[in-house]
């Protein structure tokens, strides 16, 4: 039954969306929830069917598209992509289910379903061309969501978002074409399959050039400092659902691509660029945390906090050992859950008051106690409280990177301080004190529809914080295979040394109990 599950997973929402054009407006919400629920159930089936003990890709499907150039429709997943896919379907479901009253709700739901296709597509693609197509396609629904349902500056924000990320991906495309060309040079065969590219050992100078080309595409998507300025605009103008999906899934494409492309394909270049990237990450962490602290709009606080956390993810990725990379992949999930929830929470207030300014809030804890509680949990998760989902990821990422550099990790570790500062400051401004604004006095607490979205997120936050094993184990196994591949491929002695061989570690770790 798992033969074509990935293709079903990718194309089912899109087909359902096409069909959705004929669905009546009154029942479109139910239709959207049903489709998203089926899709989510399918992704759970996928998780159920996933065999954590197998190394390598699973549920592979291959269909030649342009055989002359070795372009195949090649999909498959491993532990790294599996959970991001589950997260994507999950967020689409709760996003549609918790959708408030919006104009043109039909367009919104269908757009979200198309977006779901592109998101899942990116994470299952194992062919660079297919990957690129989904990667670019994902911009279109997002552009539409920001541009059509956004705030007053929506046109500026959406065009900035589109052009900025698009520029990056074009540079990435050049990198991909060169990679295919080098592959052709080396083997005489054309191939765009990532798995084939893994096998190619490139000289270091070529690796560096290609790494840089890919880096632009990924870094803008992440977004890494100093390419991050599109994000606050996009978040600031996007409707709640847009911000949620953007923060939870779309940003993860960049970091996921680092793990999927940059590390295994260019291990030496990864080592070469490790320190500069770590420095950029640290700037991201501290600088954007400070910027977040200065914000006057709570949504911008969350937006900048996203950038700050993405810094930790990138840092963990470039730890180049199993602990760090597993941690960063786990943190992708964690950050998706937590920042998605935070954006939803901001949306709850926005729906009631149509403002996001901190100065308009104040003393909300006494008016909306449940809201304050859930917000508090998410703030604490975001600040990296142990036994919440974020901590596991941050701990492992920083732990992994500590192996590479002491000083840089100490600097990066300030994430837990500065993160607490801006989060608590914003939380205090919004929720503590007395109610100063009369308009806030009669606000309703979270309603059932919002709870439907928020409670599962809270549960996941705590569950994976206490018992991360079901997610961490498959991730760890897949990361182990990537790291050992990198170790084998590494040419320079420095890279050999920087990237430990996890297989050898496993042998010694047998006696750990």
């Amino acid at each position, binding site marked *: 039954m798992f033969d074509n599950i990935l293709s079903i997973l990718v194309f089912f929402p899109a087909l359902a969306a096409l069909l959705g054009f004929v669905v009546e407006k009154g029942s479109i919400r139910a239709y959207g929830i049903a489709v998203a629920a089926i899709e989510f159930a399918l992704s759970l089936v996928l998780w159920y069917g996933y065999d954590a003990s197998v190394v390598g890709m699973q549920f592979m499907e291959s269909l030649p598209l342009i055989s002359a150039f070795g372009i195949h429709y090649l999909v498959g997943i491993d532990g790294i992509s599996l959970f991001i896919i589950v997260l994507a379907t999950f967020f689409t479901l709760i996003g549609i289910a918790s959708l408030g009253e919006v104009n043109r709700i039909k367009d919104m739901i269908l757009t979200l379903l198309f977006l779901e296709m592109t998101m899942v597509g990116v994470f299952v693609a194992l062919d660079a061309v297919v990957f690129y197509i989904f990667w670019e396609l994902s911009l279109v629904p997002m552009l539409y969501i920001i541009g059509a349902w956004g705030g007053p500056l929506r046109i500026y924000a959406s065009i900035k978002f589109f052009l900025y990320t698009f520029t990056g991906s074009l540079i990435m495309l050049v990198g991909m074409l060169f990679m295919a060309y080098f592959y052709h040079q080396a083997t005489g065969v054309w191939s765009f399959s990532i798995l084939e590219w893994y096998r190619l050992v490139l000289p270091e100078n070529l690796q560096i050039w290609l790494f840089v080309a890919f880096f632009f595409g990924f870094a803008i998507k992440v977004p890494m400092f100093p390419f991050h300025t599109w994000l606050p605009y996009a978040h600031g103008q996007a409707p709640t659902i847009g911000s949620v999906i953007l923060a939870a899934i779309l940003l993860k494409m960049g970091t996921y691509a680092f793990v999927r492309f940059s590390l295994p394909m260019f291990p030496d270049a990864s080592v070469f660029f490790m320190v500069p990237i770590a420095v950029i990450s640290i700037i991201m962490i501290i600088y954007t945390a*400070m910027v977040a602290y*200065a914000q006057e709009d709570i949504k911008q606080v969350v937006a900048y906090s996203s950038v700050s956390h993405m810094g930790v993810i990138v840092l963990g990725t470039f730890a180049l050992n199993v602990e760090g990379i597993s941690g960063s992949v786990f943190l992708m999930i964690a950050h998706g859950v937590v920042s998605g929830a935070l954006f939803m929470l901001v949306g709850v207030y926005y729906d009631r008051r149509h403002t996001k300014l901190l100065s308009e809030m104040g003393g909300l804890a006494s008016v909306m106690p449940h809201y304050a509680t859930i917000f508090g949990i998410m703030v604490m998760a975001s600040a990296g*409280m142990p036994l919440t989902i974020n901590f596991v990821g941050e701990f492992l990422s920083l732990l992994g990177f*500590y192996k590479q550099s002491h000083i840089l990790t100490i600097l990066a570790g300030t994430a837990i*301080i500065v993160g*607490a500062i801006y989060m608590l400051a914003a939380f205090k401004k919004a929720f503590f004190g007395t109610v100063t604004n009369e308009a806030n006095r009669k606000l309703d607490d979270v309603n059932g529809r919002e709870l439907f979205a928020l409670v599962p997120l809270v549960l996941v936050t705590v569950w994976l914080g206490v018992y991360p094993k079901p997610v961490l184990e498959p991730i760890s196994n897949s990361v182990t295979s990537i790291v050992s591949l990198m170790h084998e491929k590494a040419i320079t002695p420095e890279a050999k040394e920087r990237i430990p061989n996890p297989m050898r570690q496993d042998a010694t770790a047998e006696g*750990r109990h």
Partner: protein
Amino acid sequence: MELYLYLALFSPLAGSLIAALFGAQPKTLFTGLLTSSLLGLSLVSSTVLLVHILSGGSAVHVEMMTWMATGDLYIPFGFLVDQVSVTMMMVVTVVSTVVHVYSIGYMHHDKGFNRFFSWLSAFVFSMMVLVMSDNFAGLFIGWEGVGLCSWALIGFWYHKESASWAANEAFIMNRIADLGMLIGLFLIYWNVGSLQYDRFFEAVTLLDQSILVMIGIFLFIGAMGKSAQFPLHTWLADAMEGPTPVSALIHAATMVTAGVYLVVRANPLYEMIPDVGYFIASLGAFVAMFAASMALVNRDMKRIIAYSTLSQLGYMFVAAGLGAYWVALFHLMAHAFFKALLFLGAGNVMHSMSDELDPFKMGGLKKSMKWTWIMMTLASVALAGIWPLAGFFSKDLILEVAFVEHHYVLYTVLLLTAMLTAFYSFRLIALIFHGEERYKEYGSHPHEAYTFMLIAMSPLALLAVISGFVFKGSYFDMVTAVLPATEYHVHSPIVFWIMVIGTQLLVGLAIAFAYKKYQNAKIDKVFEERLCYKILRNQYYIPDFYEEYICKPYRELSYVAWKQLDLRIVDATVDGIASLLYKTGEQTHTMQNGNLSTMLRWMVAGTVLLLALGVAFTVGYSVVAG
């Protein structure tokens, strides 16, 4: 035994979660009773474990489940009940049960009654995790958990700006220290390959000295935050914004002593690095003196007790730093009892004086609050270290340790501090309970607390009296199974008696002086004009310094980073590129003047250019290749 372990650990959690369900609802007495009785269960289980350990049973070690496992890393939820942790468990459960019961009365009128109990029990759970964990990661969970609960409880009255500010200050300062702790953990992992205590302690002897020093320093930085050691001490006094039972439980008896616990727990490590130990001891002595001096002139009842706590923590660190781990732990225990008692007594006073904190506005309360007076006096006597109360056995022992280890400077500092301690403790007692009834001017109507609150406090009073001479022997026998069993005896009996009696006399003098000076509570205007008074009154201007030179620059820098850097430079660069392209279009659109002929010429020109490029590249390529 495992069952008792789990009962002791998880019944506070269960209480907390159930109370949390009613968190947003108006007061239900049920939550208070439930959490208190569940804590009682936890206390009983801890006692069973204590009896088990005391009767020579082996340490209980369970591994509940895996927490994190990736690569080489393997962190379980493992719990260890040995002699050290069972002592801590007893301290935590006893004090917290008392505080819970007491709070039912104290929080009686509060809107957030249920929320309070939920957080209080959650705190106890975190504290239990902290002390029972068998690895550093589990310790860190508890470490952060108590920080979180402390944040929530300090800021419990969130409508008060000062309370939520103090909560955030406490949390963030602890976070700074936690970073050090985290780095310590990373160091341990990458050098040992495990975060389990036993694996680490085995490996300690094999590791490089410099690495051990680094680990020791970073772990101690973590301890400094939780135990509010200089320079991370300012949060503790501000934390007094929380309800008084919270101050008793968290900021006197348990959480702040976590740092001491960490050093005691990591004793094999600190054994190996006596230099770091000496640094810890020196810092402890400094903080003891420093905090006591601030307590001398303060006019806020709770802050005085908070500084006293800080001072006593300094004592504990002196003992721990000098390698007398069992002494540190012993003082921790004794201190927990009498300090919690003192705080609860202060809570009674506050209750009856409608939350008045200035002792100069009280006076003569012993008539209306007899039992509170008795208990607070007992606690103060114990704190001052008068024989035969608990403080004598634990605190004077620390003085002896310093003496025996030939650290005479530390000894002198500690002795002076002991006098100061006695002075400010009895200054407080004298101001509150003796002399004229000044409160009448302010229209208060003092009344004794509920009887059940007094009864709840009585075990602490009892323990403050007896825990010294009753428990010392059995305690020593028990903990020295895992801690270094160094006995500290002054060899010459004459010196010993001079020391003991001398100390007692000095302390007695200090008490008498305090009574004399503050019986009538005359505010000495001349004295208040003096520089030294101002310095002490303003806590050496350290909070102002932090505000002026750390918080404010950070705020301003943040603002600059956003407005100037992010918007003006980073974003403007991007927009600049975009507008450059746009301008180019504006400039060159004259090319598209609509004249087909012109456009055709441009087209041909473009074609020529492309062809030329093609030729150039082909030629270039063939030259390079050929």
